[in-house]
């Protein structure tokens, strides 16, 4: 199980899509490829944009299928971040 604190990369407002992409490419995908489970810890992140969440996880679902969500855990999400993650995961599963 590998864990990353999103706040350390983004600060309290997670909006930089390039940073989301970095987390995905350098952390999420390599971990999943090693069959490790991933924890994305949003502690300290007050808000995010849909674009950030999209850049963070959409390509994981696209590449690895919806089953990838069985191995990704979203921790310490406030309600807004939770809703945004739900939006992205739903439309991604509609798309794949």
């Amino acid at each position, binding site marked *: 199980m590998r864990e990353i604190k999103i706040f350390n990369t983004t600060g309290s407002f997670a909006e930089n899509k390039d940073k989301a992409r970095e987390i995905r490419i350098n952390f999420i995908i390599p971990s999943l490829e090693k069959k490790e489970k991933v924890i994305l810890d949003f502690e300290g992140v007050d808000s995010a*944009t849909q674009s950030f969440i999209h850049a963070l996880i959409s390509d994981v679902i696209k590449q690895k299928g919806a089953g990838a969500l069985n191995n990704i855990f979203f921790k310490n999400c406030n309600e807004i971040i939770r*809703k945004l993650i739900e*939006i992205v995961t739903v439309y991604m599963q509609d798309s794949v």
Partner: protein
Amino acid sequence: MKIHLMNSVWIGNIDPFIRSFDISNEHILEITSHKKWVSVHPVVLCMISALGLFMREHGAKINFEKMEATSKHYFHRMGLFNLLNLDSEMKITPHESAGRFIPIQQIKNSEDLEGFIKEMIPLLHLEPNKVEPIKYIISELVRNVFEHSSSTNGAIVCAQYYKKSNTIRLGVVDTGVGIKDTLQIFYHPRDDLRAIALALTPGVTGTTRKLGGVSEMNAGAGLFFIKSLAKTSRDFFMIYSGKAMYKLLKNPKNKQIKLIADPLEDHYSSDNKLPYWKGTVVAIDLCLNETINFKELLTSIRKVYSEGKKKLIKERYRKPKFI
């Protein structure tokens, strides 16, 4: 090119201001203004700044007629003359700002944007929950400029809080390729208005061929989210790109708010024969009287986004022709 700053220009009455642009001469930008009082939406400051930077970059001169209006200090304070490197001919003693405004900023890259978002919050002197939608809008709009506009001057942004109406008004402007060009490769919009309507439709992005599809970095949701924020707060939202302007009109107070995926089914006005704006202009008003319930809004958006995408895909289905 000639621009005249009228007495009053807000989103609601911006149409005559835009129609009055004279785009015949590309070698000089002449700016004149109402002699007594000029009161404008921040997007107007962004437009003049963006245009001035663009034209100067292309060798044009800027001739800003000395302002006589009593309100001329506002333009100085918002940084218009400074950004365009013009002498305002106003002598103003600098003092600690007590106003609630974000002066005109040129944002060219991701680092600029991150710094800007951090710095702008204290300038507005607002409670954190009221700042959330503003941060959201600015981030999404400015990142659209970086990703889609190919603008060499980045995004020009400014905002103002109006205490009396408890409203934030903000503008984000670029002088890039415009929306029609961005969507041309995959969607072939027939005109600028159709292009704007497509850009506002959930599931349409200029970065993927797949209809209703998503790319690694885009889902075609950003502008729809922002339009939905304006609609929920019963305020104006405007996009002007190429020869077209789309304006979401205020939702009447007695009317229930229902988010609609197709922007052309919303309560809007439009014009498709305006003077050509090379790039994209976005303006929004956001009344803070009732804190937008972001969570509920996101639930509605999720539903409409999904339905809108399905409708979009269905529209492209071809039925077999039986003869």
